[in-house]
């Protein structure tokens, strides 16, 4: 499309702002003089954007509706924008290093928060704004990230293939009693916890993980496994019978159980309960306002319950579990009855060990 003169004036104003030749107020005055109405992406008339980055799918809608909208309603002048390009730690690093940060809140992981924090590439969470008591446990409030939702890696199986149901990771590793292909995520996180528990470690003694023991346990079944990278892929592997038992996210396991009328079942026992950690890249465009947004997500129990209904993400606010409708309780990872059966992920252990251990894991499964 041919650029009009007016568009070029706007572009010029923005360049001047970027170079620091004019300030934001002068930009607004200039834009007003040019008769520019607030358009998508433009921060005219004092509307400030908070850019939230997720991994796509229904998250765009869910995060917008249950995190973004309540915050905007309570804070006029702020708009929460969703971006679903996938905030991998590598992409966050390249953004921070090139000093062109356009993201405010990134749907990362406990490991990502520790790694980025250690490199000085994430903003600390301001716990004078965000309330620790808005989370059910310390798993969800880290130095460089907070989790307004939780998820779990659970054991799912095809009940038509086994006369007796598997009940633990020990059964998962028992290829004689439960023959058939296994499905694991191609990532050491959660797989090594499951391997440790299959060796008889109780829930409270999984950490620190005995990596050598766990990896040799993975080595034993690696030829009977397929590995998934994405959630949709994991669901497909089970649905099409490529694997008869797997470790997948509870959100996918819930869908399988519902849609197959119970042919595919999952168990909470020995699941690995993980925080959906949100990370703020260093030098984020919205600045300190993002802390208020994080606080709002953490405090909003009803929004979190709404998200459980839409996507299956478990709430982390202590007031939320009791507000979950009865029929959803069995699918809520943080329901007290379900949470008691699982082991909460130790994000700090993974942050300190992920690079080394995950490389060893990849070498084991591709060996």
């Amino acid at each position, binding site marked *: 499309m041919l650029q009009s003169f007016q568009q070029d004036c706007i572009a010029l104003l923005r360049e001047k702002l970027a170079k620091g030749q004019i300030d934001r107020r002068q930009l607004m005055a200039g834009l007003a003089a040019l008769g520019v109405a607030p358009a998508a992406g433009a921060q005219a008339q004092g509307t400030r954007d908070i850019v939230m980055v997720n991994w796509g799918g229904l998250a765009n809608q869910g995060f917008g509706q249950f995190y973004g909208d309540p915050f905007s309603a309570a804070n006029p002048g702020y708009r929460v924008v969703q971006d679903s390009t996938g905030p991998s*730690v*590598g992409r966050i*690093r390249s953004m921070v290093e090139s000093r062109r940060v356009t993201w405010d809140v990134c749907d990362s992981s406990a490991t990502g928060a520790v790694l980025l924090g250690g490199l000085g590439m994430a903003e600390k969470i301001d716990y004078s704004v965000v309330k620790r008591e808005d989370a059910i446990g310390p798993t969800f409030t880290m130095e460089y990230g907070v989790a307004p939702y939780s998820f779990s890696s659970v054991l799912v199986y095809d009940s038509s293939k086994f006369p007796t149901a598997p009940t633990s990771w020990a059964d998962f590793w028992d290829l004689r009693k439960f023959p058939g292909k296994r499905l694991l995520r191609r990532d050491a996180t959660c797989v090594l916890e499951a391997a440790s528990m299959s060796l008889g470690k109780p829930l409270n003694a999984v950490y620190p993980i005995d990596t050598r023991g766990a990896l040799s346990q993975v080595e034993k079944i*690696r030829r009977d496994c397929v590995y998934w990278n994405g959630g949709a892929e994991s669901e497909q592997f089970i649905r099409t019978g*490529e694997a008869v038992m797997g470790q997948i996210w509870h959100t996918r396991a819930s869908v399988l159980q519902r849609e197959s009328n119970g042919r595919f079942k999952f168990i909470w026992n020995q699941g690995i309960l993980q925080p959906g950690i949100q990370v703020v890249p260093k030098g984020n465009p919205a600045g300190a306002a993002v802390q208020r947004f994080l606080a709002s997500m953490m405090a909003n129990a009803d929004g979190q319950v709404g998200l459980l209904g839409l996507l299956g993400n478990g709430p982390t606010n202590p007031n939320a579990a009791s507000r979950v409708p009865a029929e959803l309780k069995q699918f809520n990872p943080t329901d007290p009855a379900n949470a008691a059966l699982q082991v909460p992920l130790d994000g700090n252990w993974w942050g300190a060990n992920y690079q080394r251990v*995950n490389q060893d894991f*990849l070498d084991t499964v*591709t060996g």
Partner: protein
Amino acid sequence: MQARNAGWWALLMPAFLLLTVFYIAPILQVLSISFTEPELGFGNYERILTNRSVQRTLSTTGRIAGITTVLALVLGYAIAYSVTMASERARRWWILCVLVPLWISVLVRAFAWVTLLRRQGLINEALIGMGTIQEPLELVWNEFGIIVGMVHYMVPYAVLPMLSAMRDIDPRLMTAARGMGASRWTVFSRVFFPLSLPGVLAAAVLTFILSLGFYVTPAILGGGKTLMVAEWISVQILDLIRWGFGTMMATVLIVTILVTLGVFSRIVNMRRLFGGGH
């Protein structure tokens, strides 16, 4: 003469500058990370000699690319030969059939192979239905599946340079050989095949180089059990944020490709690869 040359250079300059500034310089900048992270020096490159993971990734990639190249050449040679020998009208249809797969996205093709090869896929269901096998065959989530997908992708790239070489062969040579009493096999093995060899070599270089950098096909058809160089680099850069290690492998890949091209450009007319023909 001098002035005329200067004119040509002036015409080339804008494209050259554009490439240097927006393509070559950023690539060099990224690759230089392999010498500066985690510390200054050749530490990352030392690991080619010491690290089992690096060695295995390189050998896996080399093996898969090699097998793919051989199979694509065999299949491609047969196709190119039939197309050369076909009538003018049939030849046009043949060439269209070779080109059509090139226009289908690599992602779509990989998923199509999954549908065919998986346990409850068309092939296994058909074989079980006919009673040929009892248990489904493991056709995918292993190197076999990767090679099927990659050969399928590579055959057109193998056909095109060989076809151009074969069409340059003067058909009167074969007629003459036949006239002097050579059998069909002798005509092929002593006349046609040696003359088509430059095309075969060019096709081999092209297929091998393209196979080295495959990402999507092994990621989808390998079931996570096989790591080729491209995916290994992506894991290092995006997930493990070990950029020095990842860019080292990227440098190794680029150098391998340039060396392969350099060596073979002395043997083969490289213009054939890029559609120059004569």
